[in-house]
C-alpha cells in the first residue's frame, strides 16, 4: 500500500515515449502537468481539465486516456506515449502525421496531439473503420478550427494505406 501525505512529494518511475523516466510530484498533480512542467514535454495540451475536450489525451499502456483526469501518483510503472513519441527517431513524421498534413486536418494544432493519440489506438484496433466509426471515436474531441472533415479524411486515408501496405506485405511474403 502506498501512502503519500497531502502536500508531500512522491517519486514516480515510468516509461515515457520508450524511455524510462523519473519525476517527483505531489500526488494531486495532474499527469498533464507532470508531463508538461516537470518533464518538459509540452506537446500534450490542456484545454478543459474536466475530461471533455480531449486535448490532453495521451496513450497509457496503449490506451487513449485523459491526462487531466489522471493523477501523477497513478502513473507509476506505466508505459506512456505522447505526441512527442509518434514521429520516427530522426523526427520524420509517421504515416498518420503525414496524412494530417496532407488532408489539412489541423489549423491551430492545439487539439491535435490529443486526437493523434486517440487515432493511434483506434487505428490499431479498427482496420476497417467506416467514416461513421471514425466520427464516433472523434466525439471525444472538440476542435474549433477545422470542422473535423480533414481529420476524418486523414484517419480514413491512413487506415486505407495501412491496409494496402499490409496486403502488399502479405502477398510479398506469399511470393517468397
Amino acid at each position, binding site marked *: 500500500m502506498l501512502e503519500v501525505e497531502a502536500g508531500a512529494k512522491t517519486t514516480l518511475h515510468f516509461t515515457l515515449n520508450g524511455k524510462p523516466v523519473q519525476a517527483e510530484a505531489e500526488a494531486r498533480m495532474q499527469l498533464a502537468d507532470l508531463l508538461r512542467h516537470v518533464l518538459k514535454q509540452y*506537446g500534450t495540451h490542456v484545454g*478543459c481539465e474536466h475530461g471533455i475536450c480531449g486535448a490532453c489525451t495521451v496513450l497509457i499502456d496503449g490506451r487513449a486516456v485523459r491526462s487531466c483526469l489522471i493523477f501523477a501518483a497513478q502513473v507509476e510503472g506505466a508505459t506512456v506515449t505522447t505526441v512527442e513519441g*509518434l514521429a520516427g527517431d530522426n523526427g520524420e513524421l509517421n504515416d498518420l502525421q503525414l496524412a494530417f498534413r496532407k488532408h489539412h486536418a*489541423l489549423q*491551430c494544432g492545439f487539439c491535435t496531439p490529443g486526437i493523434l493519440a486517440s487515432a493511434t489506438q483506434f487505428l490499431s484496433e479498427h482496420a476497417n473503420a467506416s467514416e461513421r466509426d471514425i466520427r*464516433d471515436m472523434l*466525439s471525444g474531441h472538440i476542435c474549433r*478550427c477545422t470542422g473535423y472533415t480533414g481529420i476524418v479524411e486523414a484517419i480514413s486515408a491512413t487506415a486505407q494505406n495501412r491496409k494496402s501496405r499490409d496486403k502488399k506485405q502479405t502477398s510479398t511474403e506469399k511470393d517468397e
Partner: protein
Amino acid sequence: MAASERWVGKSLERFEDAALLTGRARFMDDLEPAAGLCHAAILRSQHGSADIRSIDIAAALALPGVFGVLTPDDVAAMSNPIGNMVSRKLHYYPCAVGRARYFGEPIAVVVAESRYVAEDAVDLIEVVYDPKPAVVTIEDALAPSSTRLHDDFGSNVVHERTFRYGDPEGEFAKAAKVVSCRVDYPRVNSTPIETYGVIADFDAGNGRYTVWSNFQGPYAMHPLVCDALRVRGHQLRLISSPSSGGSFGIKHGVYPYIVLIGLAARKVGRPVKWIEDRIEHLAASSAATGRATHIDGAFDENGRLLALRLKQTENVGAYLRPPDPASLYRMHSTLSGPYRVRHIAVENKVVVTNQVPSGLNRGFGGPQFYYPLERMMDLAAKEIGIDPIELRLRNVVQTFPYETPAGSVLESGDYRRCIELALERAGYKELVAQRESARKEGRMFGIGMALAVETSASNMAYVDLALTQAQRAKQLPKSGAAGRARVIMDPLGAIIVHVDSLPNGQGHRTVVAQIVADEVGVNPEDVEVITDLDTFGGAWSITSGNYSNRFSTVVVSAVAVAARMAARKLRATAAKAFGVEPGMVQLLNGTASAPGAGNESVPIRRLAMQLHWDAGDLPEGVDGSISELAEFSPDTMTVPDEHDRMRSSLTYSFQCDLTGVEVNAETGRVHVHRYVSAHDAGTLLNPAVVEGQLRGGFAHGFGAAMLERVTYAADGTLLSGTFQDYLCPTAPELPDLDIAHYATPSPNTIQGAKGLGDGCSMIAPVTMANAIADATGLRDLTPPFLPGRLWQLLHGGAPDLTLTRPKAVPHDETGRELSGALRGRGAVAIEVAPQRVWDALLDPTQLRAIIPGCENIEQTSPDTFRARIRVSIAGIGALYEVQIRIFDREEPERLKLAARGESKLGFGRGEALVTLEEADLGVTQLTYEYGADVGGRVATFGQRMLDGVVKVVLADFFDRLRAHVRGEKPGGTVLQRVRRFFAVLQAFWGGS
C-alpha cells in the same frame, strides 16, 4: 508567369504543420521567458450582482508558497479604469472594485510558487457579499426599476443613437405590405481550445512592463492598456506568443488581463504567469453580444423591399468594454445586407447587464444582424405569397460596384449567380420534391436559405459611428484599414518576411510564402515567415492583429507590395549585370534571366548577396540591400461624412447558404439532409486553407444554431459553466457541408482576394431557422435549436422553461408565487398534534437537533434565525452561513419562511409555504411548497442535479422533524434512515 507556375492558388501543404504535429510548437503555457516565474490564480465572484462588503486575505497570505495578493484596492490605486468611447462615468477595471457585476468577475489575484498553491490560497480568501437583484436580460436592463449596474452613470442604457438614410417614413407609408419580426438573439463564445494566457514582468527600475500573451489584436488596445497601467507606449513591451491555439475574436478580450496580471507582477515584484482555465474562460473571458431586434420591412406589391426599420438593443454585458459598441456598428454601413433597399431607419441602444462583458467573436456583429433580416425576408415571402428564394432574387444587388445607402461600396460580385449555384449544388428541385412527399406522409421537412455580405478589412472609423457628427468633430479622427509587411533578403540570400497578422491557426506563414515566392521568383520553402509581434520591433501598428479578415485582404496586399519592392531591386541588379532594361528580367525558380536577350542567368541568391556585400556599387534607383517595409493602406477608408455614411470595409464577400432538413415532432431532433454554401471570396490564395476556414466557420455557425448559448439564471448565476453545459459540436453532430465556389475578384486588393471564413458563422443559424420554420410552421424561433427547446415550441410551451419564472403553482392563497427556478412540493404525515410540530419548527434548540449538519443556530429576533449548517449531498458538501426569516404566520396552521445560505461552493435562497392540518386525531398532515434558487460554483457544475438535491435536502429535514417530534433520535440506523427516505420520496411519486 503562367498560371500553372504560380504558387498562389495552389493548395500547398502548410509549413506550420510539422512542428504542430510533433508537439514542438510553443503556446503560452509552454513559455518560461523570465527567471523566477510565479503563478497566478484568480478569486472570482460567485454572484452575478453583489456589493463586496469585505475581503480578508490574511489566511491566503499566510499560506506557505504564496508571494502576494493583488486586491481591488490595489487595482484602483495602481491603475486607471480602462477607457471607453462613450463615457468616463462607466468605470471598467479588470477586477470588481466595490461591486461584482458578473458571475466569475475577477476580484483578487493570488501569486504563488505554483498554480496548485495559488488555488489553495484563493480558497482561503474570505469575501462577504451583499447580493443585489440581478439584471440579466435586455428586458430587465430596460425596466426603469431595475438595479443600476453603474451608479455614477445612472442608467443601464449606456448608449443611444438613431440614423436615417433616404426617406424611410415615406416608403413605409406607401408600402403595400409591412412585415415585422422580433428576435432576441442569444450570446455565444467561440471557445478556442487554448484559453487566455498572460505572462507579465515589471521592471521597477525603469517602470517598464514586459508582457507575453496570446492577445490577438487589434493593437489599438495597446495605448488603452498603457493608459490603464499609467505608462507610456515604450513602457509596455507586448510580445506575442509563438503559437496561439485558436481565437476567432475571443482572444481580443485578453487585454484587461494584461492590465490585471501586469499589476499583480508589479505588486509582488516577480514575473507572473496566468493561464486561464476552462471554467474561467466560460465565465469571464468574453462573448459575442446579445441583441434584441425589432425589424420591419416595407414591400411593394411585387415584393420589392423598399425600406427597413431597425430597432436594435445590444447587450454588452456588465461593462461597456472596448471595442464595443463596435459589434453594433461593424455591419452598420451594410445594413441593407445584400439587397437594393435605399431607405433605412435605425434606432440603436446599448444596455449593460450582469453578464460577461462582450467582445469580438466569430462573425463579429454578423450573426446578430443577419438573423432578423433573413427571418424577416422569409416571413415576408410567406405573407406576400412569393417563394422566399424568388423574393431574394428580386431584391439582391445586381450591378457592381454598388454603393449602399450607408456608404459602403460593394466592389464586385454576382449575387444572383451565386444563389443559382447554391440551388444547383443543393439539387434544389429534388429537395422540393422531397419536401412534398414528406409532407404527404405527415413528416416535417423544410428548406431554408440565407444570404450574407461578409465585410472584411474593416475601416476602423466604423466605431465612431456611435458618435454623432458633432461629437466626432471634437476628437481625433479615426480611419483606415492597413496592413504592414517587411520582406528581407539576408546576406546568404534567404528570405525572411515579417507580417503583423498574428495568426491563430489560419496558415498565414504558408500563404505569405506562396505570395512572396510568386513575386520574387523563388520557391515557398525558401521563404521564412515571421508572425511574431513585439511592440519593441518595427512591424506593428495599431491595426496589427487578426480580425475582420484583414489577412487575406490588406496584409497579403502589403506583402505583395513589399515583395515587389524586393523584386524591383533584384531586377535592377540583374539588369545592370545583363545590360538590359529591368523590365526584361524574369525572376523564376530562384533564377534571374532575360529570356528575350540571350542565355544569361544568375541565381537570385547571388543578386541578394551582391546588394549586401557590394553596397558601394549599387544599381541606379537602388538604395541598399533588400529590407522592404510596405504599408498597404487604401485611401478610400475614410471617416464618416456628415450624413453618417462611410466605407466600412475594403472588401465584401458574398455567401448563399441553403439547407433541407427534417424535424422529428416527437423528439425535436433536426436532421440535416443537405447543406450547401455557395461562396464568393474573390481570388483564393490557397484552396485547402480556404476550405478549412469555411468548414471551421460552419462548425461555429452550426454550433450556434443548434447547441451553444451563454446561459444565465435569473439571479445571474452562469449555467453554461463547463463543457458539459456549454455544448460545442463534435464530429458526429456536424452535417456534411457542400461548398461551391464562385469568384469575382476584388479590385481593391492586390491579389483580388476578399475576406472569408466568417460567412457560415454569420448565417448558418438563420439558414437553419428558416428551414425549421418552413418545416414546422413555427414563426418565432431563436437558437439554439436544441431538441428540448424545439420540442417545447412545437408543443406550445416556453422553450426556456427553467430559466423563466413559471406562472403556475406553487403559490400561496394570495396568489403571490413563491419565486425560484427549482420548485416542488411535498407532504409528510406526523403522528403528533399540529401545535407540537409548530413549536418544534420555531424553537432554535429543537431545530439544532433536527437540521442535519447544523453546527449552530441562534434566534436573532422573533422572526429571524441565523445558523451555520454543513450541507452535504453525496459527499459534495460545504459549510453554509444561513439566514432564515419567518413571516405570514398563522399559528398553528400556516407559515412562510425565506432562507438564504452562502458558502464557498455556492449559495442558495428559497421560500417555502408550510401548512399544518390536523388530518386525524393526533396526526398532522404537513404539506410544503417551495421555490428555490441555487447559484455559484455548485450550480455551475451540478446544474442537472439541483432539482433532486433540493428535494432530498428538504425531504431529509422533514423526515428528521417527524422523528424528532415523535421522540425518536433523528438519524437512527442506516436501514431506518433508508426506510424513512423511501417513505418521503414515495410522497413525491404518489406511491409508485
